[in-house]
């Protein structure tokens, strides 16, 4: 998967390139709008991460040119300003997502993956299986090792989110937003408690743990693998 990152801030550009490369993407970094515009128009990428505020050609211009050329490459905007007008403008111009600086890298990664998944044909399946954990989506039932696990509605939603994005680190804010539609940082450790309770039902009776805490970043559901360090 090729990702174009247009970011003029040196440090941000560097860590975006490093982080995304280490997450397994091929990253091309443009450090100004002119280079970014040129790359966006001449090469093919699966996703673009554009900074809105660039000294020469801003992110909006780049995307406009892109859409005018009939290219539907998904675009994720990064901006330092958070105002409704900006958001609306970006989305009207055809941006696919919008992230306000400063953001957690895990959040960016999760959104990048969502966008890339969206551009691939969606998999419509009735069942998700991770190791011996099975989710029956229409009936909203979960079982592990053939043993039925009773979950509340929200617990099932949480497990479904983790399972659908198996192996991805999901930040707490993303979990709160996707499962409970709470789009703000709560002062409390609600998500940690919810995960702890889910874990008690999913993992406690089994030697192989599936739900993992990635310290400082969030949670992921994965078949345990000793080699991997977040």
């Amino acid at each position, binding site marked *: 998967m090729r990702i174009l990152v247009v970011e003029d801030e040196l440090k941000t550009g560097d860590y975006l390139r490093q982080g995304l490369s280490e997450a397994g993407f091929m990253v091309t970094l443009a450090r100004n709008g002119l280079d970014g515009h040129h790359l966006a128009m001449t090469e093919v990428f699966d996703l673009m991460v554009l900074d809105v505020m660039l000294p020469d050609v801003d992110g909006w211009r780049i995307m406009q040119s892109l859409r005018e050329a009939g290219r539907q490459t998904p675009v994720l905007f990064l901006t330092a300003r*958070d105002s*409704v007008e900006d958001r609306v403008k970006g989305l009207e111009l055809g941006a696919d997502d919008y992230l306000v600086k400063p953001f957690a890298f895990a959040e960016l990664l999760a959104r990048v993956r969502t966008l890339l998944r969206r551009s691939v044909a969606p998999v419509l399946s009735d069942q998700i299986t991770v190791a011996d954990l099975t989710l029956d989506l229409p009936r909203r039932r979960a079982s592990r090792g053939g043993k039925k696990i009773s979950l509340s509605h929200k617990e099932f939603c949480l497990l479904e989110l983790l399972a659908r994005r198996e192996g991805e680190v999901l930040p707490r804010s993303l979990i709160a937003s996707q499962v*409970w539609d709470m*789009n*703000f940082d709560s002062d*409390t450790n609600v998500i940690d*408690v919810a995960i702890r309770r889910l874990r008690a039902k999913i993992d406690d009776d089994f030697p192989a743990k599936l739900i993992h805490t990635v310290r*400082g970043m969030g949670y992921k559901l994965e078949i345990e693998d000793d080699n991997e360090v977040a």
Partner: protein
Amino acid sequence: MKWLSRVKRRPLSLTTRVMVFVALAIGLSLLMTAHLVQQAVKRHFAEQDADELIVITQAVERALRAGADDIPRLPEVLSHAVSGHHGVYFQVWSPDGQLIYGPSDDELLTPVTLYTPVSRILAANLHSWGAGGNAYRGAITQTLISGRNYRIVAAMDMNFHILFLDNFRRSLWLIMTLAGVVTLLAAWFGVHQGHAPLRGLSDTMRDVQADSLHVRIDPNIVPGELRGLVDSFNYMIGRLEDSFTRLSHFSADIAHELRTPLTNSITQTQVALNRARSLEEYQELLYSNLEEQERLAKMVNDMLWLAQSEHGLRKPVWEQLDLGHEVRELFDFFEALAEEKQIVLALDGSTPMLSGDRAMLRRAISNLLSNALRYTPAGQTINVKLKKTDDAWVELSVENPGLEIPAEHLPKIFDRFYRVDPSRQRLSEGTGLGLAITKSIIEAHCGYIEAFSDDVATCFSIRLPLVTAGIGA
């Protein structure tokens, strides 16, 4: 010209206004006084004259009666009738219109032909006429003596009176003008003096600086009329001082709140770098740094959020929503946490749909709920009550049992970084901006928030208007 009327003119000065009114009043009353005095003097003269003319007429009548039988000698009798009177003239006319006695100058004949006789002389029916450069005043009477009807014309020289009146009028006007000028000067001085407390007040107000906001003006040292002004000024300064104090506390608090995580992070890093460590130790350091940095980022985000909403940069996105539904969603969110703390979340009542920003209101109520969850003892219940008050407002209250918040803290509880117990600063979660954000959200919705506390429970009460139409545009 149309534009001329648009030009805003500076209002007339207070002194000018007062002076115009005083001048009008004084002028009018002096004019009236002068007029009355003049009339009174004139009337007085007329009455004096009338008295004298009566005396003369009576004397003439007596003479006529005495000499009526001897008509040829009548003029001689009459010539002695009036003596001792100066500047007095009289004529006696026979019934057939012959002048029996008296000066026959043409001028003095005038009244007989002009005026009808009266039976009694009064000040009111005297006549004045001019003759030969002199002015006369007189009266004509008719008297029946021995069957004959005589007419008597009595008159007196009025030049003296006129001269006196002229002089009198001149002095009167001079005195009145002087009195007017003196009064106006006195009034001007009075007004000027009257404004002295105002100037003093202005000087005091000018001396108020940012560091002397504690200055208050004693309302008892100014005249009653200025009391309202002084009270308003004191009130204004009070509010200014309050927000100024809050602002400077706020700056100090920011510095303090930011310094703590920064110092932690710096010290940890310095200690770690002191000697070579294992990979795990470096990782541990990075994680620990990350936590502090996230704390900082969240605080800065919250502060930015508050600043933006205070400057109206963060406008609510209006939509119709049901508060009961939002509260239930939030209960759903906090359910796990509440259950773990063995706290029950209860909702009571409902409200009609109202317009508001869903995400903002969720955030506001969520802050109240997480606050309540933090302070409610295990096994107790947090009660959220919804109701529509009769005046088109909606009330949402979050009540939790727990320790009382002392009354002196209640008004400040919505201030940024304000903590009731300073010692638990680092222990409690959150940035200390939650309630400030809640308040700013409620105010963006044109609502109010209040906190109450007693030894049983603490209650946060939000009031939102049902009709916020017009704001949504």
